[in-house]
């Protein structure tokens, strides 16, 4: 499946409909069954796939609509993580989860969700996974001697899962590590853990680092300078970073630190409902092109579209595709 120059995609999540939020919460109140919720998720994912296709994206995700948040989807599946299922009432809250012994090797069954996605689209499909560094920040550790040890073991278990995803046909896998920005002092060991996670995985691996999107607002402030030069040691093919909300100043880092990475350029600000025009998108891309050649640029929103209303998310993605087409034309495509 060949991609055009400047391929467009989402970071992972698509707009979470209000009705789905309510139904997820109904599940926690034990008013609907797991089976009903699974069927509801299937329907919602199909709609999200369709929206992305109609918007014109080149690489599609399942919108992450099965997930309550970026932690629990994994914490619940990870063998050896104990989750208190009574510890939340609202779906988006985090479970209280804890590890009390060494993690056993067992499947998380993420490949099933990828297969579902792939069966409902003819376009390239991407699967997104929360990275070990972010997971250890939310899962209480009562066993390992430190966060790095816990994260390394998580990476070992999840590496097996990524390989399974690749075997299931996932050509594009994205690792989400937003907590790097909140804990830049962890980066040294965070990258080592990341490399354990992706070792031997036969897929294009993107690393997404942002400043948080919890409740649609940033969790941290700062700039990406902290990533360099340590991030150059990461065995990933692509960095996916936010530039729309924060401006493009950090693009200079790609000149300052020459590197081999593709760059996923965030051109959509997901923290405002204001829809960008195609011209704004084009301008943001032109700026990125000054630092990274077109062959190495992917086009995305800053982060997940989870908190945007559906009509806003859809309009933003359409604008992103249209803006990208302007640049493709300028490049002679």
């Amino acid at each position: 499946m060949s991609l055009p120059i400047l391929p467009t995609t989402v970071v992972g999540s698509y707009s979470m409909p209000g009705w789905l939020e309510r139904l997820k919460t109904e599940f926690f109140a034990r008013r609907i069954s797991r089976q009903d919720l699974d069927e509801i998720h299937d329907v919602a994912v199909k709609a999200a796939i369709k929206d992305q296709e109609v918007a014109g994206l080149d690489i599609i995700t399942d919108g992450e609509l099965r997930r309550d948040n970026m932690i629990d989807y994994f914490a619940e599946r990870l063998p050896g993580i104990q989750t208190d299922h009574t510890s939340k009432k609202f779906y988006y809250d985090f479970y209280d989860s804890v590890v009390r012994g060494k993690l056993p090797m067992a499947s998380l069954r993420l490949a099933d969700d990828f297969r579902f996605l792939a069966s409902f689209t003819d376009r390239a499909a991407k699967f997104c996974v929360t990275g070990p560094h972010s997971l250890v920040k939310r899962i209480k550790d009562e066993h390992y001697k430190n966060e790095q040890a816990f994260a390394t073991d998580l990476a070992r278990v999840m590496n097996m899962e990524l390989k399974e995803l690749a075997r299931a046909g996932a050509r594009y896998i994205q690792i989400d590590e937003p907590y790097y920005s909140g804990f830049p002092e962890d980066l040294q060991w965070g990258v080592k853990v990341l490399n354990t996670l992706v070792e031997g995985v036969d897929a294009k691996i993107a690393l997404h680092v942002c400043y948080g999107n919890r409740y649609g607002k940033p969790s941290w402030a700062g700039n990406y300078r902290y990533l360099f030069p340590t991030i150059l040691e990461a065995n990933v093919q692509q960095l996916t970073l936010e530039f729309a909300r924060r401006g493009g100043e950090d693009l200079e880092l790609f000149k300052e630190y020459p590197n081999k990475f593709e760059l996923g350029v965030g051109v959509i600000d997901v923290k405002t409902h204001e829809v960008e025009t195609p011209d704004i998108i084009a301008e943001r891309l032109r700026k990125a092109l000054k630092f990274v050649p077109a062959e190495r640029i992917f086009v995305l929103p800053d982060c997940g579209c989870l908190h945007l209303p559906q009509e806003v998310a859809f309009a933003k993605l359409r604008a992103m595709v249209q803006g990208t087409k302007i640049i493709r034309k300028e490049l002679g495509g």
Partner: protein
Amino acid sequence: MPSAGHNFVTGRSIYSYEFVLSCSRWALSIPSLVVYKAVLVFLMILHVNQVPPNQTAIAGSVASTLLTVAAERQVQSRVLENLNVHLEWVQYKTNFREAVSLRRAIRGEEVLPWLEVGVDLRQCRPDALKEEFVDALKEATDVQAGSKKRVYLEPFTPIRSSIIWRFNNLFWQHLPLWETAAGHGFEKALPTGTSDANHPEAVADAVADFWTLLKDLEGHNLLPAEIFAMEIGVGTGRRAAAWLDRFRALDHERGTNYYPRIRFLLADYSMPTLNRAMEAVRNHRELASFLAVDALDPFKSLSFLRYKVLSIHLTNVYDNLPTDEIVVRDGKLYFVESRAYVSAAAATRISEEFGIPLTEFSRTVGRLLEVGPQHLHHSGGEYGVQFWTAVWDAIRLEERFVAIQSILDAPLPAGVKPGLLEKFVGEGVMNQRFHLSSGAVESFLNTVPLLHPRGYLQVQDIFVTNLEDYGRMFRGPGKMDGSIVNWVNGALLADVGAQAGYDLHFAPFHYREGSRTSILYTTHRE
């Protein structure tokens, strides 16, 4: 007899009358009930929402007057059968209610049989009670009766759209004129004659908290080059001045040198207020900025500060923002519409006093709101302010309840997810009247995007943090000088905050004994 407590209590039947008394706080003794021996059969419900201990006699008079009216058959029995009477003590000396006021319920064009009469015990005079009841209840069957007694200033409208908010706006835009005429500053209208916001210990604690945050950020090498702090609704500017004085002193004492990096923003929608505040903070002019902002949407004019402000403080702003009200009766939902009026007697008196034909009264009020008091009359501002004051004193609100199927059919605060309101109302009690605090909710949602990821919002105001507390005391609207005051629905605001990613905490203002204000502060929701 009914006992104290807030549960529904069924009173004893007296002959063939049945009374259901809903007591919220006070035991009620009505010895005179037993003298009636009528044989009408109907159910009338008396809700005792709040009766101060020294006002039980007047509450008893209300009950016995009701029985007298019923026994004497001065009001149709079908009216009495559908009647709910609510007794409360309106703590605001001036407000928008008559001593006795009728509220009808409608569904579309249809007038529903269910009726409510509100009684403000504070205004009740025992000798006039009976007449006022009969008058009010006769309106139930004569929809034209009101227009004979009142000069209406507007048609029925959701409360937040009422003309009273234009008066509120007029007050803040022409504050100096009002204060000159009143002979005192607006803070004199507060219970203690001064704002709690200026309390030196409260200010010192707020500054200490802020300094601690800055120190922590600096420790993580995350302290921004420019440190933005903001006050919305600046009052006299005394709090901002006290805050800056204290911060400078603390900064000097600790040797941290943060003060020069402070960018202190004073924001208000009233230019006269900003001008006054400018004078108050003159010793810090080099780092203070004065911004005209819409209190309902600070983000509109301050979007360049998105995610940059480390501390935002508001005092007595939310209680002065437009709101709508929801009524739940026997599990059914209504939203409240009102129309402002001046009694025909008052309108006549004011018209004569100011040399205006009565037929021109409403138009003159409209002109006052349009051009301001200084341009109302060729003689100058004094005439205009006197007219304004007289009209404001006389304004009342007639209310009606509009039946709705779902809370989503009500005029809702912008930006709130519908599911949240459905859940909020669904968890409420069966009989309740509460504020939607529309303006406060919108203001909150349009303020938090300004907060730095480590920043916080503090709001000092009068909050109802438990929905059931709405039934225990009158919560507004009241008049505070020329402005409006409403308690703020803190319970709803907490849910709205959670939706926006903030946990809201309410701490009573402990710096002054007897204070009814609380401080809302936000923490980031994980």
